[in-house]
């Protein structure tokens, strides 16, 4: 055999041996490491790190959690790739609209493989989520909804309708230096992302897709919603000319915006920034409907590559991360809505005004569709929405393009 072929053969054997290495049990020295990739941000991330550190201290030498933060999109994409390659962390934490992608790509295993029925039975319907007949995610919170967050010093009360609120926001938008640019805005939010457009779409009576995954965006309701957002910027001039997530966060935290539309993941950060904030429902649109955000749970899924011997350790970790003590602490510190009825009905929640306001917003929200087509919906909406906001297309063209772009992405996926 020529030498080069022999070298290939050795290489191949070495690679195969390494790939087929038996996962025969916990390490002989040191603790079992449980890797978690998550997208907990801001104050929630700091809280999570503290909780993990406490767990690691308590289980020193036996189990060690190693968390790693990733941006939401990157988190899902890298996890899928890692998992398909036989690698990746043991757990992934993220919003429930990731779940169908993770299940479809065979990246996760059912949580019922890890957690006993008796444990799962303690959750309400938002706590253990399924798709295609299996349960893939155990949630520690209902916490992916947007709400109207306001600086109480600037805006003491939030009325129920935009009609009543707009004059107040206009009065709060001020140019104190006289350079022609407001130094403070009435409102801000990330208006480059379609996720933040949904409350206006639902408020106008529209929605993104049918239950079977057909987009429903080329409608008069979408046009009305787009017009409303444009009016907030161009007619009432209460929002900045350009605002992505970071700009919106900075403006609100620095008191240069009286209100922001954002979700529970950000609220702890406002407290840390010294803002005395309140939560309210995003007001009713002229149609009389509430500006309803999408609501969804966020939670943990288990990597399909987790070896059998690791499951008892994972169970310990998951019971800690989603159990009553953790959910109570989260509700108290982060104002997240628990998924355990025992915690949801406890004084920690019922006496917490921020949580009650958050729950009130969820009551009028619309559940996030779990179909994998949501990936294409978000991506397809984003471009036309940005084109409308930059003025390069009309609201009617924007709605048509959203429909076409989403449909194109759905079709392209099957190529």
């Amino acid at each position, binding site marked *: 055999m020529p*030498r*080069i072929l022999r*070298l290939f053969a050795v*290489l191949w054997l070495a690679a195969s041996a390494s790939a087929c290495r038996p996962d025969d049990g916990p390490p002989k020295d040191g603790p079992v490491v449980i890797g978690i990739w998550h997208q907990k941000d801001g104050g929630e991330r700091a809280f999570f790190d503290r909780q993990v550190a406490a767990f690691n201290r308590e289980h020193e030498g036996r189990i060690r959690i190693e968390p790693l933060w990733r941006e939401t*999109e990157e988190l899902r*994409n890298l996890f*899928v*790739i890692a998992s*398909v390659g036989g690698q990746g962390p043991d757990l992934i934490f993220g919003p429930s609209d990731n779940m169908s*992608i993770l299940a*479809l*790509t*065979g990246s996760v295993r059912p949580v019922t493989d890890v957690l006993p029925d008796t444990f799962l039975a303690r959750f309400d319907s938002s706590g253990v989520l399924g798709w295609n007949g299996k349960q893939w995610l155990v949630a520690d919170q209902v916490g992916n909804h947007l709400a109207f967050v306001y600086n109480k010093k600037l805006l003491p009360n939030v009325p129920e309708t935009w009609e009543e609120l707009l004059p107040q926001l206009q009065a709060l938008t001020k140019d104190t230096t006289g350079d022609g*640019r407001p130094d403070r805005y009435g409102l801000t939010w990330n208006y*480059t992302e379609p996720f933040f457009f949904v409350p206006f779409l639902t408020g106008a009576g529209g929605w993104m897709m049918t239950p079977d995954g057909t987009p429903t965006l080329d409608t008069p309701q979408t046009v009305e919603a787009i017009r409303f957002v444009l009016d907030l910027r161009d007619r009432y001039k209460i929002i*900045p*000319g*350009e605002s*992505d997530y970071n*700009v919106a966060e900075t403006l609100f935290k620095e008191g240069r915006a009286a209100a922001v539309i954002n979700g529970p993941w950000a609220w702890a950060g406002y407290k840390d920034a010294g803002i005395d904030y309140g939560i309210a429902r995003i007001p009713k649109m002229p149609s009389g409907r509430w500006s309803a955000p999408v609501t969804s749970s966020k939670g943990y899924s288990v990597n399909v590559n987790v070896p059998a011997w690791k499951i008892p350790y994972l169970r310990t970790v998951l019971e800690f991360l989603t159990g009553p003590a953790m959910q109570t602490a989260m509700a108290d510190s982060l104002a997240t809505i628990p998924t355990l009825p025992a915690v949801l009905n406890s004084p920690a929640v019922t006496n917490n005004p921020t949580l009650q306001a958050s729950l009130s917003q969820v009551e009028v929200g619309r559940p996030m569709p779990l179909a*994998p087509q949501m*990936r*294409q919906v978000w*991506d397809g909406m*984003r*471009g*036309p929405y*940005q*084109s409308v*906001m*930059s003025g*390069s297309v009309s609201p009617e063209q924007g709605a048509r393009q959203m429909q076409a772009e989403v449909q194109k*992405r759905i079709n*392209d*996926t*099957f*190529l």
Partner: protein
Amino acid sequence: MQSEATNTAERRQRSRFLFWMLAPTILIVLAVVAYPFVYNVVLSFSNMNLYHIRDWKVVGLGQYAAVFAEPNFWKIFGKTVLWTVVNVFFHVAIGVFLAVMLHQKFIKGKSAWRTLLILPWALPQYITALTWRGMFNYEYGAVNLFLGKFLNLSPIEWLTSPTEAFMAAIITNVWLGFPFMMVVALGGLQSIPEELYEAADVDGASAWSKFWNITVPMLRPVLIPAITLGTVWTFNNINVVWLVSNGGEPADQTHILVSYVYKAAFAMYRFGWAAALSLVIFAILFLFTQVFLRQTDATEPAY
């Protein structure tokens, strides 16, 4: 007879030695270049996507047909060419200009200037790109504040208008790329014999004439490979365009081919299609490199 046998044994021993010396390099090249490349070729003939990420199969040339049938392909290809040409032009023009300036005898504190001018290149691209993105913000960015305060110009929608966003990415990449060309040109300038300039001075040649007739031809041997490399890097430079435009914003109008591939593969899970497009990019760059190097005689000695 015995001597011939000894020679053969020596040759064999020598080639065995060479083989084992080269083996680590061969292994690394096989692992990080050959295997991914071959795997990519196979994927480009497959239907690997969100619905067939584990059970994919080879389906023929369908993904290549889909690449060329993609309505955005030619538009993005045109933008990629524009992106590359404009960037490389400014990299070379600014780089050579600064190198020539730094080479002048009357310049004081050369090493300090050199360090200062290399800084954009020395900083991580990620940080520079995100800093520039912040500076391009419509209301709070330094660029618009500068334009308004010192030039009395209206603010520009750098990040929300397609053309301006593309320009913003180009400006950032020009900033990041000129130091490389400057360093290469500085190296080249050191090797130009001083006598050539002295002879030109005796002949009464102007500074411009000396630049065109001595400096430029003598820099060619170092600049042509640098331009070739720069073109390939710029054509495939996903970092800057992706970070400054936040992944192709607004409305996917600021993509170059490589960012389009990245999005198709890692955001939309169209691995087969993305693999086919990446091989099309490879073919374009391979062809360009061959033609450019041949046309410019870059592999020939300068003198």
